């Protein structure tokens, strides 16, 4: 059942990414050049809603549909947060997409984005191979 919800949430998310042009290389260029506030306002308002929602979930003691307690895996600091973060930022500029928008670009008919996807898959694989040797 939760897979059905995941599919539904993903579909809505994909629609939003295309309609709001979050998945647009052009908007990402404008974001990084500080030429417009669109992307910052989206991220900002998304975080505001997210913070509020987690506060409410904790205050009201809401549980998952399966009746379980809501737990969020911790992502502790490690050097990859900085090094990987900077590398990802470069990729975000070149492809005009972070992971979600890569899928959205493909779905919207930008099939050249498959190159971005294949690159991302290979990049993840490369990380998996190099991981024991990388500073963490």
């Amino acid at each position, binding site marked *: 059942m939760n897979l059905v919800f995941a599919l539904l949430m993903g579909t809505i998310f994909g629609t939003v990414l*295309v309609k709001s042009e979050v998945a647009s290389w052009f908007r990402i260029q404008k974001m990084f050049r500080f030429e417009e506030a669109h992307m910052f306002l989206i991220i900002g308002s*998304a975080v505001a809603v997210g913070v509020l929602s987690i506060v409410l979930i904790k205050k009201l003691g809401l549980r998952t549909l399966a009746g379980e307690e809501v737990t969020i895996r911790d992502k502790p600091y490690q050097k990859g947060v900085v090094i990987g973060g900077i590398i990802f930022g470069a990729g975000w500029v070149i492809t005009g997409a972070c*992971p979600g928008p890569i*899928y959205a670009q493909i779905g919207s008919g930008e099939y050249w984005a498959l190159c971005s996807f294949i690159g991302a898959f290979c*990049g993840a694989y490369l*990380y998996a191979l190099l991981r024991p040797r990388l500073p963490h």
Partner: protein
Amino acid sequence: METLTQPWPWYVAGPLIGLTVPALLLLVGKPFGISSSFRHLASMCSPKTRVAYLRDNDWRSELWSLVFVLGVIIGAFVAAHYLSNSAVHLLPDHYRQWSGGLRLFIGGLFVGFGTRYADGCTSGHSIMGLSNLKWPSLLATACFFIGGMVSIVVLDALFPMP
């Protein structure tokens, strides 16, 4: 229908994206994140691998993530074909050739490698992590932007706009 076919403003898109946080937590019991899908796909494609990062990853328990990104593709398709009056162009024309494809592949390498090394992307860190008030996610987000801005400067210098 008119408002639906225009580009959506930030005050519609932002909150909708933000609502993905509680929706996934409550309905699927999972925290929002997308870059992990690359790991799960890699694990799925490497059943006999000895690489710990892929072998020790129970991708079957994270199937929701692969279904979610399938939904993203479907939703994007619907948006581009049924919710838009004009053709949707998310990539610049100069990428629609093999030299562009190579650049996208390299950019993709950075995205895949960087997000896994950072253990999250804009969804996992900037939205989910910040919503959960985690400082490493704020640091991650700052680094995403530092990496992006430095790249803009470097790329502008290497490939000046005519």
